[in-house]
């Protein structure tokens, strides 16, 4: 029996729970991946698709509501206090929001998978150490630690990217460790050992490929989590700093105008929620497809 807490992995539980939701229609299955593809395209092409330059000001057309028209033209989502087109700044923010989400998750993935395999394979004191670290990481109020960390190092995109993996690596480590332990007990690994495979051969040919799908699911979930965390830090002013722009920062920027220009807060939040929702839905699909959920 696994120790209750060592085996616990809220994030993968979340993935499974997402997957167990009743399936939507087929059209729904295509919709969410399409959203992600669209966001990625938006991030890659960036300003090319934006109706205006994201930094172009026009203080004469400031705080226009959605669907308003200025001397420059039509503003689908309105303008901000300096007259910048909100849609364009949101598109500009897509790149960094996604980049941070993906990069930080990937770093966390590499750390987590490495440590998780080591813990699951070598067991003993390595296992104990890794899992205690993971637990300490989870037990710490990470948000507060993040504040402390960013106060000391100064807020910047780089520091945010090196901080956020700390939030996600334990999830990967726990998953991979638990899967490694589970897979070591499977018949096909036993068969591989019986065949004469060495330890590294078993790890490389049998365990890693079989962990991969679940790691993929978790990755998708964690990209969402990381994006939310980044938004939180940026919102509090300790994350990404202008002139860099992320959705979280846009929400923060619009906050003083909540009562007079509701769209400044609402729109970036909706886009962020949509992105994370798409990632969650995609993870659900993955999980269902890989057959690891009912």
């Amino acid at each position, binding site marked *: 029996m696994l120790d209750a807490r060592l085996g616990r992995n809220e994030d993968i539980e979340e993935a499974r729970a997402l997957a167990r939701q009743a399936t939507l229609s087929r059209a729904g299955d295509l919709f969410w991946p399409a959203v992600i593809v669209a966001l990625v395209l938006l991030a890659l092409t960036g300003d090319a698709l934006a109706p205006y330059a994201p930094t172009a*000001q026009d*203080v004469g057309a*400031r705080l226009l509501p959605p669907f308003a028209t200025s001397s420059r033209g039509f503003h689908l989502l309105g303008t901000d*206090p300096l007259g910048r087109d909100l849609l364009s700044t949101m598109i500009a923010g897509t790149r960094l929001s996604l980049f941070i989400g993906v990069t930080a998750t990937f770093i966390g993935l590499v750390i987590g998978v490495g440590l998780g395999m080591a813990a699951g394979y070598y067991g003993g004191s390595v296992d104990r150490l890794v899992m205690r670290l993971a637990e300490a990481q989870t037990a710490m109020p990470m948000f507060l630690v993040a504040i402390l960390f960013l106060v000391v190092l100064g807020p910047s995109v780089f520091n945010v990217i090196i901080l956020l993996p700390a939030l996600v690596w334990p999830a990967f480590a726990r998953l991979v460790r638990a899967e490694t332990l589970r897979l070591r007990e499977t018949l096909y690994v036993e068969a591989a050992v019986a065949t004469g495979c060495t330890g590294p051969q078993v790890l490389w040919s049998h365990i890693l490929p079989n962990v991969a799908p679940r790691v993929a699911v978790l990755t998708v979930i964690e990209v969402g989590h990381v994006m939310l965390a980044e938004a939180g830090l940026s919102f509090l002013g300790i994350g990404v700093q202008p*002139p860099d722009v992320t959705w979280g920062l846009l929400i923060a920027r619009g906050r003083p*105008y909540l*009562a007079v220009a509701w769209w400044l807060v609402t729109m970036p939040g909706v886009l962020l929620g949509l992105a994370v929702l798409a990632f969650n839905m995609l993870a659900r699909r993955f999980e269902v497809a890989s057959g690891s959920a009912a």
Partner: protein
Amino acid sequence: MTGPMGIERRSIQQDTSRGGDVTMPVSKLVLPRAAVLTAVGLAVALVAIGPWLELGGAFAGTATRPVVLTITTEPATLDAQAVNDRHSRVVSGNIFETLLDRDRTGRLVPLLAESYEAVNPTTWRFRLRRGVTFHNGEPFNAEVAAYSVNRIIDRNYRTTRGSYTVGIAGARVVDEYTVEVLTSGVNATLPVQMTSLPMVPPRASQQRDFAWRPVGTGPYRFLGWVRGREMRIAINDNYWGPKPTIREVVVRIIPDKQTELLALRAGEVDVVLDLLPEQIQLAPKHVSHPAPEYSYIAFNTHKREMADPRVRIAMNLAVDKERLARTIYQGHARPNMSQHLSPGMVGFNPNLRPFPYDPARARQLLAEAGFPQGFAVVLNTPIGRYLKGEETSEYVAQQLAQVGIQARVQLHEWTAYQNLGRIPGDRPGAFDLKYGWNSNEWFDGSRIIAHITCRGTSSKICDPRIDELMTRANGTVDQRARDEMYQQVWQILNENPYSIYLLQQNLIYGLSARIQWRNRLDDEVRIADMRLVR
């Protein structure tokens, strides 16, 4: 018993629906029950903890509740001598009093002193008001006044009001109601400095809890402080002067401007400091008044690109201040007169005008100075410190870009921003451009000294003419002569600008319908000035 007769394609829909009923029995009874359970659970939870929370909170009943002011930052201390931030002054400014004060128009008037005179160039004598006692019963006299002065200048006493006490050497008792304040050299600004030097009771102020149990002589006495929430003050019935009409005041800490406004709209509070211009339409009432606050963007004249005054003049010409005031500040600001003073203040130069918006001329000057292509600079701005500071910086950056100067806006937390400002201009790490507000609560040209003299702590300019004039002015007691000299200083600072002169800012207060108040020129929030209307 028959075999299958071929499978007719009967509509499976019908079956499925029934099959659905079979497998997913949703009882019609239980769903509302769940909702009811949830609701009951919520209600029980709230009722259970509700009474415990009724510590001092009053949500309803505006008619009887005290006047509520909001501040966004909780004061660190209410020891008025220790700090000088606006938010603590909202409380301590009503508890403590100084020897001299300003009236609503900004004129220097006696308060705890009845009169004062300079007995010699380094000695000022104050005759004190009699019959004044502190809220704790300690009498106010010369000994107290001397103690208060000596306390604040004691090097072991850490205060952020240090800049207000520069040049004060000490104080001594002459008789029970006469005190002399000594200066280290001639100090023309001493009377003005006394408006920033609160009188504190010797006994109470030596207690550790003075920081959160302040005792003063003012019209209001301190009632209590719920950390993180609010501070309360109430009328001092033994006040020596005219009694204010508002009896009890709560100063609530609401760290978000937005929420402050919403609370004002919701009728939870009466006075909100520093509204955004856009928020005015949502406030029940407001007052907006030009304040002695001058926004500017300081140059580091030690940087190669900005050494030439033509470049700096060009940058002044490149910014459309009218438009800035009209749009971003919605008219609640005006271009300042290219000096950080307003008419009526000592040193105001009536000959100076705002730099016009003239990008063509700016480009030309830049070319003359050898920068036809412009150059790149960083514009440093503090986060959340100044009303629309970040936006203004972005705006200026955009305007500078029009003449070819690429200014990148870099935001800093307040502490980091302050530290940045202290780095001498010729050292590595010194800023290029820095956005800030210069406040002149002394109404006096000397207030700017740290920013423009060669050895000024924040200064990034060194012009021997200025240094000479500033030193002379400070050593002259003749106010007319000083006025003259400061005017010259600003004349020089227009030919050799130390900053882009932006705006004179308004401060905007949101008021509830029941409050009647006209704010003072010096921005002190005096409850005594407020009235409740029916």
